[in-house]
């Protein structure tokens, strides 16, 4: 009988009992959320106005000096250039390739599954290990890439300006060359990320109703392109918005490849000095917490801004 009493009480007064249980169950998560996610943002916000260093007893308020530096020093200009070059290159290409691959794989049916598996491999692999593998591939003398390019010497390929130069003076150093470094990083970013986007698009594609294609055909959409434009693309709207946002956020966070290639300095002539690397170098290695916090705040601002745009797009446009 004793076992019945609490349940009776529960049914009689569900609200107070549930409220206590509810808060009790939520409390650990809430505490950790505040301590690990919210407090650090506030801390970073405060420290970005100081010249604090770990180990110092105190700090001075320096106002907006840290932010001012971010926008005036040439190092940070390079940082913004590198970060945005990376994001602006990687996001459209990896989303585009992901969509293209998804459409092709989808049209192949069963055989397409093999490609799906293969294209997804880079997503699973430890990026750092793969970065090192790429470093060997791109090694100027013993790397596979330049060896493969050398094979083309003496054939009609030599007519292309790139090969003419390469065969005469040697092919690029890739990672050592400041004109190529950031593009190599971009390439690896695309290589690693497009399989993920493809899988997301595939999930979106399977939810497109077959009848819609038939209906479009009835209405005179004969070519594949027309069907894509009228049916597939609008139906993928929500997926696309999500894929673009998540790609952007991931692209902003690029770090592993850059640290693996250039542990000091972020690339030849700082051409690949992205924000995450700057936070790492300034804030942690050089113990300039103030400036590191300022970069952190700016970084968060970009990410929040992107997500707000996404939410806005989702709410506004993609109801079908």
């Amino acid at each position, binding site marked *: 009988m004793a076992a019945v009493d609490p349940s009776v009480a529960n049914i009689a007064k569900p609200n107070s009992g549930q409220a206590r249980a509810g808060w009790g169950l939520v409390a650990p998560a809430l505490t950790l959320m505040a301590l690990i996610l919210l407090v650090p943002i506030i801390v970073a916000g405060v420290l970005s106005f100081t010249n604090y260093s770990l180990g110092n007893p105190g700090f001075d308020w320096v106002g907006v000096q840290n932010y001012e530096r971010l926008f005036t020093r040439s190092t940070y200009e390079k940082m913004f250039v590198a970060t945005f070059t990376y994001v602006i290159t990687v996001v459209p290409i990896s989303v585009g390739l992901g969509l293209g691959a998804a459409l092709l794989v989808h049209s192949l049916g069963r055989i397409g599954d093999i490609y799906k598996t293969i294209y997804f491999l880079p997503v699973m692999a430890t990026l750092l290990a793969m970065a090192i593998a790429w470093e060997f591939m791109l090694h100027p003398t013993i790397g596979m890439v330049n060896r493969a390019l050398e094979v083309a010497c003496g054939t009609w390929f030599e007519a292309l300006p790139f090969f003419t130069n390469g065969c005469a003076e040697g092919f690029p150093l890739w990672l050592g060359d400041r004109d190529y470094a950031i593009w190599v990083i971009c390439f690896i970013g695309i290589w690693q990320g497009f399989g993920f986007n493809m899988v997301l698009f595939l999930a979106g594609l399977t939810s497109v109703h077959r009848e819609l294609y038939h209906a479009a055909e009835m209405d005179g959409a004969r070519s594949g392109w027309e069907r894509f434009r009228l049916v597939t693309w609008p139906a993928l709207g929500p997926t696309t918005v999500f894929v673009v946002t998540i790609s952007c956020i991931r692209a902003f966070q690029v770090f592993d490849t850059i640290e*693996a290639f250039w542990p000091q300095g972020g690339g030849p002539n700082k051409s690949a000095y992205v924000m995450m690397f700057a936070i*790492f170098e300034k804030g942690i290695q050089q113990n300039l917490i103030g400036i590191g916090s300022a970069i952190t705040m700016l970084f968060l601002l970009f990410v929040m801004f992107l997500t707000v745009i996404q939410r806005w797009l989702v709410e506004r446009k993609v109801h079908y």
Partner: protein
Amino acid sequence: MVLILGTIIVLAPFYMMVSYSLKSPGEIARGEGGFFGRQEMMIDPRCVALRQPGRSDIEAGSARFPGQDDGGVQAALLAETEADCSMRPVVFNYSKAFTEAPLIRYLLNGVIVTMSIFLIQIVVALPAAYALAKLKFWGRDAVFGLVLFCLLIPVHAIALPLYIGLAKLGLTNTYAALVVPWTISVFGIFLMRQFFMTVPDDLIDAARMDGMSELAIVWRVMLPTAIPALLAFAIFSVVAHWNDYFWPRIVVTGNRDLFTPPLGLREFKGDGDGSFFGPMMATATVIVTPLIVAFLLAQRRFIEGITLSGMK
């Protein structure tokens, strides 16, 4: 056709990584030997250098090679060492990968860290998700709003303040530092809440009738129903933290006992001269293989798990 070209580009680094891990340094430098290399016996130069016969060895050895002068004995001993030190490139690369650095230890660390992160995430997230999905209480919407807001915060981005906090607590270079920032998975809460919304209320009411406490309901009723979602979340979490390099790089400095697999590989690269390409690629292969094999075995689950984040 396009797909096949894509396949080549996607697979090239994997091919190279495994191939190099099988070849001798000479073959790597000259680019010969196809995929497997020729697997000729090779001599480990370090091993020979370490066991260069000295004066005393020669005297001791003269008994075993009677009738030879010192030079002859030395040559015979050298030949013996070289025979001892020669091995197939595969064996050389992989044995070096495991002996040059405590790779087993690193792998073990990787397992410890990813498992504890996952378990704590579940212990924290599951009750919260249940409360947010099935209990009515004042302030619930506010808490859920907070969860949605926190979804926007990439933990990597706030690494610096987290690092300062951990340093203040004296926790850098501990397992705790590797695990703590990841103990709260807002995404996990969100995911499990969405899943729990679909569980019928009758099930919970029946459990209450049986006199179960709310906490017991979470673990004895909700947990079993949530296995598919949990599995997906497990894959998501384990993949992310096994491969994570940024955070361990920040909080573990110097203490090799705490290195996770990517850090171990990084260290290998740091002191690598040219002849170590083989062992390094062997290390890389060892680190990448567990997830790849698991993925190939349970592809469907993996792809589901990873794309779950897309089903918001």
